[in-house]
């Protein structure tokens, strides 16, 4: 099976090759250790996967453990001789599925207490804006936050995955839904956000 080289920049680190065909990686020749490769991909993808899990399932303790478990499964998958065309959607899909199995689904965006908002807004205060503009920006963030809390879980998941750079086809594979469903979820989510922008 021909596999194409998938390289991507993730974060500020060096380019990481997410194509995991043992033959191409040189594993059979012993030039690359599989665990080193998995560890390299872990460094590149752990934060995006973790953030996605926390944003979607609101459980940071389990999110860390699930993120790691997804990479352990990647190792076992590759060790059994199978290949992965693109590790990014693969990892997200596995992490998502583990989370669905393990975590409760009742949590949505919770309201933030005023103390937390104050701290965050202090951090985000833009010196380039006037105090009044900062105040208005804070209020926009608050409204957006509230509106996001009204989206369905799948709408939120689609938004986060799209913002992570996945195409509709990849999002559909990750979530186990149809591409048309992805398009519909995103359209409805963005329409709701448009209502916020337009007042």
């Amino acid at each position, binding site marked *: 099976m021909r596999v194409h080289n998938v390289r991507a920049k993730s974060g500020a680190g060096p380019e990481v090759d997410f194509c995991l065909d043992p033959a191409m990686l040189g594993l059979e020749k012993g030039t690359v250790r599989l665990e080193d490769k998995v560890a390299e991909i872990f460094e590149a993808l752990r934060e995006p996967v973790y953030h996605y899990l926390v944003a979607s399932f609101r459980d940071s303790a389990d999110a860390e453990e699930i993120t790691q478990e997804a990479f352990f499964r990647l190792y076992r998958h590759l060790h059994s001789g199978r290949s992965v065309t693109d590790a990014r959607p693969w990892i997200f899909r596995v992490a998502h599925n583990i989370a669905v199995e393990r975590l409760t689904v009742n949590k949505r965006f919770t309201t933030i207490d005023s103390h937390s908002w104050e701290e*965050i807004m202090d951090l985000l205060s833009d010196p380039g804006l006037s105090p*009044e503009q900062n*105040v208005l920006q804070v209020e926009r963030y608050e409204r957006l936050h509230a509106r996001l809390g009204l989206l369905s879980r799948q709408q939120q998941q689609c938004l986060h995955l799209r*913002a992570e750079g996945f195409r*509709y086809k990849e999002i559909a594979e990750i979530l186990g839904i149809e591409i048309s469903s992805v398009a519909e979820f995103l359209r409805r989510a*963005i329409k709701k956000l448009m209502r916020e*922008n337009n007042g």
Partner: protein
Amino acid sequence: MDRILNGERTGQDGHPPEEDLFLYVDGELPARKAAYMRTHLDACWSCRVRTEKVQEAITSFVDYRNRVLRALVPSPPHGWRDFDSKLKTVVAESGKRSFRSGLRELIGLLGKPLAAAQAFASSVRHAHFPARRVVRFAAAVLTIVIAAALVLRLTSVPAVSANELLDRAAQASADQIRRVPQAVVHQKLRIKRTAPKSVEETAGLEVWDDKSGSRVRDFLTTEGENIPVAIEGMSGARKSSVFDGLTSALKANGMDYHRPLSIGAFQEWRNSLPGKKESVEKSRLSSGLDLLTLTVGIPDAVKPGQISEASLIVRARDWHPIEQRLSVKSTEGESEYDVVETDFEVLSLDSIEARVFGSTPAATAPAVSRSEKPEASPSPVAEPSASAIVAATPDLEVQVLSLLSESGADLTEQITVDVRPDKLLEVRGIVETDQRKTELLNALGSVIHNPAVRVDIETVAEAVAKQPHKGAGAAAVPDQHAEIANNSIAADPELRRYFSARGIADSEIDDAIRQFSRNVLQHSQLALFQASALRRVADRFTDAELKSLSSDGRAKWLAIIRQHAAAVQSQTAALMQALGPVVGNKPAAALPGDDALAASDASRRDAIKELFELANGNDQVFRSAFALSTGSANISVINTPQFWQLLVRTEALAGSIARGQ
């Protein structure tokens, strides 16, 4: 109207359907349709505006996600630090061949010998009759031997290192606990002691380990029975001496004596040893159960009471620890303690009788005394009495207050720290979320195992779940609400003038006033919370108790005071900074400090009392000026010189307390 889509599906009035617009903006429209869309948008303003609005919404979300949501997501609780060790375990496990691959290999190995055997058998068919029987018998024996070797090879327990064994056991334990809400680990243990010049003795122990509440209760049980019984009045001290001896040994070696068989305690103890020798051995019971035994030897252990060797035995199939053995040096040689688990379960706290973790006195509770002669030195296992081993000291109290203060738990949350009649220090409270509960329990990590401390923190949900359900006929609470008499705040005119002079558009002034008011009230409230926490800390100890503090304890106490005082100063300064331009006052220079504060604890206490009264009074003024009221609006006093002086005095006094020695 433009039919530019040339027969493609269109929405109303010849414009493309909304779905296609979204797909186009998101780059997901097929190439042909996208080309038609571009042509349409070149000519159609309204559709172009629609796509821009979609793009704006996407931009808003991405901006919010990158700036706000990232800040909201907490860091991974363990900082990824155990990934490498776990990956190594996965690698080690994956090195074991699967049954199928092993079978394939064996068949391959057998290929040539089998072929040779077949050829030989074929030649034997033509040989003399008795020789044929011998050959067939030999072939059968060979086949059996090879099959047995295959089974042994494929089912043998892989070798693991000490680190891997402990990590896997800890992980398995954590997984078990995680599956049960408000998990309580219940163990039944049999403790056997073999000491030089002494007969073998046994004792039973029941351990209830509340993981979510971070508390442990131990009960001694009589031999042969698994119900907790009081043993006061029983003759002889030997029945409890086994447990006393084990407890002493664990304590002397820094192990958790409340949890005599615990992977976490063993791991912690083992990791703390500088020089040790370790080995992992495999074994199998007659029942077929595979076991792994980690033995840790300390060659330099020579003092009586020191552990010279400890072994932890886990089940190979699920890494569960089932036995711990200790060799403890004594003046007469070595005593051996063998702690064997006879029963284990993980339960939910809701399913456990309240008496297990109840705080009723030892006389009425099923808790058990370690001694049969209470008049000698009563020391109940579950609730040590005041006259026995442990009692909270002012230093310990200060330490707990300091830890809570660093976590911000002494401001708005319902957390109390009290010394009980039995002289134990109890930290009780209710917090909003599981995450906050975990944060606080972690913050108290250095004291939570202190025998003089009891921690009982639960979430609102847990507290509500414990309340008895109200019957269907319970009267509904009448809906009460206050009617807001005014829609504006007392300081509205001043703020409106201020923002108008700054060039804020009329349509935005109301929002600006609301935000400004909210900020002022938040600063004021925080200043009051800090002043209130400061006062509670200051009033907590008598002069005599303060004098009894160690130098370290006193330093901690003063640090808490300074931290709260500095926070009051900071919040007050922020208020003055914000209000100054509004009311036309510039922040005045700080008043000279009150040097008398450094003189005595009494003068410090008086100053703190004054600071609290100032903060309280200021907050009431701010509320009357910046909050919607239920009565008639009060005339704002915020721009009077008298009030401004009060703010200046508040800030100066807080600063003096913060600097005081």
